[in-house]
């Protein structure tokens, strides 16, 4: 029997890849979409595919270490690539003006603001992991294929939301300042490290004692690698945003451009 997960992810990822090309290529041709962002988006899709299809997905059911490798790719690395490819900006550019206006209004709405706030995004992201590995959700997601799909969708979406809140380059109205985001970033990465070490001695339900040690180490040190990437991008963005600029001085002609 074909399990739903055998076709769901390959089909979804293929549709995403084709859909992106249909939207981005015309814009690319008239110079309104940078090629680098296309590369980042497709790299993100490849990383997703590596986690959700093929040997990694097949072996992750019985092996926490393989599952963790998939987690690092799907919920941590892929979101970095996707967030830096500015998918929302692409949608806004591709939509007709009225549609883009409606989308922007929705992005500025209260629910969207609450969802993309760093604290909400971090809670959904790390909180979801704590729920997954410390309750019966972990064995259940392997028994029920669609529950597995839902869990993976949540991991990806929450990872993306968090990454977007920290280093996204899409429009982010009402985003808190650098210090507030840095505090949330450190707390979230810390919670990930705490969970990784906790699993060393407290395996998820259904994983035999001792079998979680390698998975715990991979989550801890592999997580570090992606965390470092996030931190460097975050600090680089600060460095760029806080570069010294010529001081604003009112000038007689009212342009405000200091002429020195």
């Amino acid at each position, binding site marked *: 029997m074909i399990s739903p997960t055998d076709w769901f992810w390959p089909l979804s990822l293929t549709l995403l890849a084709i859909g992106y090309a249909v939207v981005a290529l015309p814009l690319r041709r008239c110079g309104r979409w940078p090629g680098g962002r296309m590369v980042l988006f497709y790299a993100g899709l490849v990383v997703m595919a590596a986690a959700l299809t093929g040997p990694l997905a097949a072996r992750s059911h019985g092996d926490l270490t393989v599952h963790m490798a998939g987690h690092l790719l799907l919920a941590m690395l892929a979101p970095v690539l996707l967030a830096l490819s500015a998918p929302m900006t692409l949608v806004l550019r591709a939509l007709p003006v009225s549609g883009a206006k409606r989308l922007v209004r929705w992005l500025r709405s209260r629910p969207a603001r609450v969802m993309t706030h760093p604290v909400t995004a971090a809670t959904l992201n790390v909180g979801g992991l704590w729920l997954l590995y410390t309750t019966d959700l972990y064995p259940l997601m392997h028994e029920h294929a669609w529950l597995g799909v839902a869990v993976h969708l949540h991991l990806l979406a929450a990872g993306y939301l968090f990454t977007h809140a920290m280093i996204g380059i899409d429009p982010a109205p009402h985003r808190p300042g650098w210090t507030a985001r840095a505090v949330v970033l450190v707390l979230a990465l810390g919670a990930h*490290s705490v969970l990784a070490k906790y699993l060393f001695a407290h395996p998820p339900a259904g994983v035999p004692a001792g079998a979680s040690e390698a998975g715990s180490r991979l989550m801890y040190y592999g997580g570090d690698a992606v965390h470092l990437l996030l931190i460097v991008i975050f600090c680089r963005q600060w460095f760029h945003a806080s570069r010294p600029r010529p001081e604003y001085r009112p000038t007689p002609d009212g342009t405000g451009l200091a002429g020195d």
Partner: protein
Amino acid sequence: MSMPARTERPASPAGLANRNLLSGLLLGIGLVAFIDEAVFHQILHWHHFYDRSTTNAGLVSDGLFHAFSFFATVAALFLFADLRRRDGVQPRRWLAGILIGVGAFQLYDGLVQHKLLGLHEIRYGVDLLPYDLGWNVAALAVLGAGLALLLRSGRTDRA
């Protein structure tokens, strides 16, 4: 003229002095955490990834400081690059910050994490007293040197 929110304030002398100290402090914390992980965990294998007697509070403290030390190292270097492009590096103040960061974090690790929270010991299967004394006395010495240097750099700045 004030700049709009979220862009950088024009660098004031006090702001620059604080940024030198902050960059140093963060780098010190990052450095000592790096040495701890590289030398004591990975090379000597004195420290353990997880000690079965680790308390939950110890685990939380370890995880948060682990993440913070990564952030601190990178942020310190970007802050330093920012000071350089503003021609605002004050080497003495920066070095004082490093020493204070190293000493304070080493002391926190030695007293709170190892002893109070039972994260892990410095080494296993040996008499711990000389190790604990060496660890914490070294931490105090570095911390003291950093504070002394900070006071002196304050005097030279005012002069």
